[in-house]
Structures are given as C-alpha cells and as structure tokens.
C-alpha cells in the first residue's frame, strides 16, 4: 500500500496488515517524526509538507517496485503525510515484510533513502511568524550511492 495523506496513521494497524499467516518471518518498520527544530516553544513551530499530486505517488511506486526487484519481499507499506504538522507528529511510515530479516531491514533502509531524495515532497518550517523552506542536504544524496 502506498498512500499520501493528511491524516495521522496507526503503526499497530499498519503492522498487522503487513503480516501473512505462516509465511511472514520478519517485519522491518521505520517511522519518521517532526523534531523540535527551533529555540522557540513547541507551540510556536510547525511544518508544512507540500507534494506534487500524481508525481509523488508515481515516485513512491517506482521506489517500492525497485525494492521488490532487489529483494524477495512479501509486502510493503509506505504512508507519507502532507499538510500542516506539529512537533512530535508522525510524518512517514515505511514497513516491509519478508521471510527473513536481512531483506526486510535492507529494503526498509533503501526505500527511506530513495524517498528522501527521489520523491516529490517539500518541507517548510515555521518558527513564530517566520517560514523557511528546508534545503536538501548532501548526505541524503550521498546515501543513495550505497545502493548502486
């Protein structure tokens, strides 16, 4: 399942959906959260997450398909939130189920790496009255080289 949505998600529910009786041997999951990025109080800060409807979903599908070609996976779930998010909110969920842990760990790591640099999302941080678009960092792009 791949979903871009405003509403929050429930990890336990997503975990249960990844399980296949008698077949699943491993589930690796990642949850990204909004860190407190300012000296101002938590209530004065928030994120806006923008996406490109159509392209973002297309990007995520391509990334998941690539992961499925690289490793024998049973199921993959990617949920990414958009819109206004507060500090400590959940942003992203990646869950991978497989027969064994090695491919589940690797695929989860791979999907997050590519999601950071190859999916059409943009973050804007607001501190008090001041909003600022988040810049991409070199280490995210460099991290992709691990998979080539």
């Amino acid at each position, binding site marked *: 399942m791949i979903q871009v949505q405003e509403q929050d998600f429930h990890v336990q529910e997503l975990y249960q959906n990844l399980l296949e009786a008698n077949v699943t041997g491993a589930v690796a999951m990642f949850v*990204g959260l909004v860190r407190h990025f300012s000296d101002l109080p938590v209530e004065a800060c928030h994120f806006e*997450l*923008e*996406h*490109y409807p*159509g*392209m973002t979903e*297309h*990007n995520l599908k391509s990334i998941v398909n690539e992961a499925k070609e690289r490793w024998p996976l049973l199921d993959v779930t990617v949920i*990414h939130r958009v819109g206004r998010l507060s500090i400590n909110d959940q*942003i*992203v969920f990646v869950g991978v189920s497989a027969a064994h842990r090695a491919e589940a760990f690797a695929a989860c790591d791979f999907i*997050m790496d590519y*999601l*950071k*640099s*190859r*999916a*059409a*999302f*943009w*973050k*804007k941080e607001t501190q008090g009255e001041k909003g600022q*678009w*988040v*810049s*991409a960092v070199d280490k995210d792009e460099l991290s992709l080289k691990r998979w080539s």
Partner: protein
Amino acid sequence: MSQINVVFFASLREKLAMAEYQLEVELPLSVVDLKKTLASEIEAGHHLLDKGVHSSVDFEFTRDNDMIPTSAREVAFFPAVTGG
C-alpha cells in the same frame, strides 16, 4: 506548436508568485531551453535559471539537457526534494 502545462512547487512557486503556467512551444525542446523561454516570458522568471532548480516531465525526473518529447503534457520545476 504544442500546448504544455508548466507547474511550480515550494520555494520556486513563491519566488515566481505562480503555481501554473500554460504556453505553446515547438517540441521536442530541451528542459534548459524551456527554462530560458519561461525566464523571458514570466515576471521573476530568472529564478528558473538559478542553480538547484530541478524538473520533471510527465512525473519523471529530468535533467537540463533532457528533451521534452512531443507527447509531453506537463513539465514541473521545483527545488531539491526534502521529504521523509
């Protein structure tokens, strides 16, 4: 001539004060040539020529020297992505 829809996102959309623009161009055309055309047509369009402006054609990431095919419907310009 082909009619294409051009969309802008995030900080670039704010700099251009515009989310969408339609224009008629002769395709195929390189991405960088489309940037130059838009830069001369749109107010504040010079921002399209800044370093770090990324692009896509019909949802596929592209580079400056890639050609926009005659079948193209939508081209997007945006800063480097920052999801996750």
